[in-house]
């Protein structure tokens, strides 16, 4: 997994609440058996005016000029600013892959759906929770200021605005540790193989019908 430490990057504001994973990556792209190649189809139904299918040349499709991601001022954005309950719905990790394949490293929102939140940490995407009032302020600033960037520092656990205003954020110590070091959590868990075997031995006597 790619490490995450600090990032100073352009912010793209997506002013909708309850953005679901069907919207982040529509179902037809879930037929892929790979983890890559989802970037061109991030927010496909909103981003393009014509229907998309896997295998198309997406560079030749009709883009929706009104959709925020298509506006030139947000080109190269790596921080997505979103509203509450971002990533609700389907458990598809393809939604996270689409965001990271596109180039996003951070999503800031007042709240996230649980499965999306979890999936993000497994792929070096930081889902960052700030109070609704702060998110409102960031929306106002990002929309009013072309080239608006934020600095996200996972060591210090802060988001810093261009004017130097700093907002602290919380993140589970274990997840932070994995993200800062780019750790593969399967490898970490397998280090506890003895504990898992001991659990199984105990469980086998308590509930033998499970084995």
């Amino acid at each position, binding site marked *: 997994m790619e490490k995450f430490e600090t990032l100073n990057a352009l912010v793209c504001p997506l002013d909708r609440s309850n953005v679901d994973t*069907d919207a982040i990556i529509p179902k037809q792209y879930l037929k892929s*058996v*790979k983890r890559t190649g989802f970037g061109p189809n991030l927010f496909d139904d909103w981003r393009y005016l014509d229907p998309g299918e896997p295998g198309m040349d997406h560079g030749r499709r009709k883009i929706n000029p009104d959709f925020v991601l298509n506006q030139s001022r947000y080109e190269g954005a790596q921080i997505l600013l979103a509203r509450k309950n971002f990533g*609700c719905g389907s458990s598809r990790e393809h939604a996270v892959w689409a965001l990271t394949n596109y180039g996003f490293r951070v999503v800031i929102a007042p709240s996230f759906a*649980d499965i999306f939140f979890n999936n993000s940490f497994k792929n070096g995407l930081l889902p960052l929770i700030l109070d609704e009032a702060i998110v409102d302020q960031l929306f106002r600033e990002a929309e009013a200021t072309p080239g608006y960037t934020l600095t996200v520092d996972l060591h210090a656990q802060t988001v810093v605005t261009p004017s130097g205003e700093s907002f602290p954020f919380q993140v589970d110590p274990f997840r932070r540790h994995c993200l800062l070091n780019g750790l593969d959590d399967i490898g970490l*868990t397998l280090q506890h193989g003895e504990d*898992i075997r001991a659990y*199984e031995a105990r469980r086998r006597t308590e509930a033998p019908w499970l084995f």
Partner: protein
Amino acid sequence: MTAKTLYDKLWDAHVVRTEEDGTALLYIDRHLVHEVTSPQAFEGLRLTARKLWRSHSVVAVPDHNVPTRDRDQGIADPVSRTQVETLQQNVRHFGLTFFPMGDIRQGIVHVIGPEQGATLPGMTVVCGDSHTSTHGAFGALSMGIGTSEVEHVLATQCLLQKKMKSMLICVDGQVGPGVTAKDIVLAIIGEIGTAGGTGYAIEFGGDAIRALSMEGRMTVCNMAIEAGARAGMVAVDDTTIDYVKGRPFAPKGAYWHQAVEAWRELRSDPDARFDRVVHIDAARIEPQVTWGTSPEMVLPVSGKVPNPDEVTDEVKANGMRRALEYMGLTAGTPITDVTVDKIFIGSCTNARLEDIRAAAEVVKGRRVAGNVKLAMVVPGSGLVKQQAEAEGLDRIFLDAGFEWREPGCSMCLAMNADRLEPGERCASTSNRNFESRQGLGGRTHLVSPAMAAAAAVTGRFADVRELN
């Protein structure tokens, strides 16, 4: 001893170890696998030369991509076919229990798990699918997971997780005639909102839940995720045990008696504390119809499409305006004035035998209305289909002008050929009314099977209680 919730009991029984910050390694008893969210996980195992920790715990089935007709011709879409073939190769390579297309046991993963007895009370159950919450109906801790977690469980039999908060949703009293499990859960989501359960494991209780069959409880738990909760659950009682008994994967003989004794403990202690308790009066629940693009945008069938101008929260009002525009609806319209183009009876929410019986009861002796372009029933599994046919239900639907299909996820998410065209309006027994979920530009209204049947025969949303 401290009183425990059902969730506490299930959690405590599965913790292998806990990190300092509370992150636990949780042991997983049953891992259900389908073709869409597993290929990258199996590929990960191959690339790292890791073995499966306990292949015996896995049951695999193709469901999302499978066609619901002309199965003898295979899967026409080459991309879908590749995904299903990839699953077949993976189950062969890793030696897993598998119900392929054509096997009578094939069906929607959340239908076949319980049907086979692969889902048992007291288990932890995971699947790379958010509707895994369904299995909590058995007094199990079941959760949807992402593909990285699928790989983690395959390799370690464990999930890294922090304990969630607990919520009790108590549905007091009894529902009236014509009101089903689907209406109960839609009313709950309308009440607590689509993120009301985020961060919680929800236990559904109260007399109205106790009175439900296992099928009904599965419908309720299935949609816990639509209220934001990764896990939903119902305590074990006789209904649970009677359902499980004799199923192929259920314990037998002495193990059966030992298991039943243990399962009887799978309920919250009377004085257990929950982080949040919500009471809902069952008698006040009417048949429900969603009007918007989130399951929380829901109305009783006697209701009118709401007006965003009456909502003070600007973000919410804008969401409602966008939903009205997408759905092609005007505020103030009675929902029973809205006509439908297609009917979908199916999905992991409502494709079990009881659902099909309920729809058939409404359809019997009636015809699909002339303005309805397509009405289809997609049974949840081959066994559900077989039993329904043995009861003559297929004839009732076919005689009325419905199509009677082969089992799969079908038009719940339209990964196969079954889908809505832009602007088409569907009365659907599925679980998500998100934009374009059932096909680009399609308009989904979530309802119960009986209400979907009522919409089919009247051509518009109709109160099923008034059809007799």
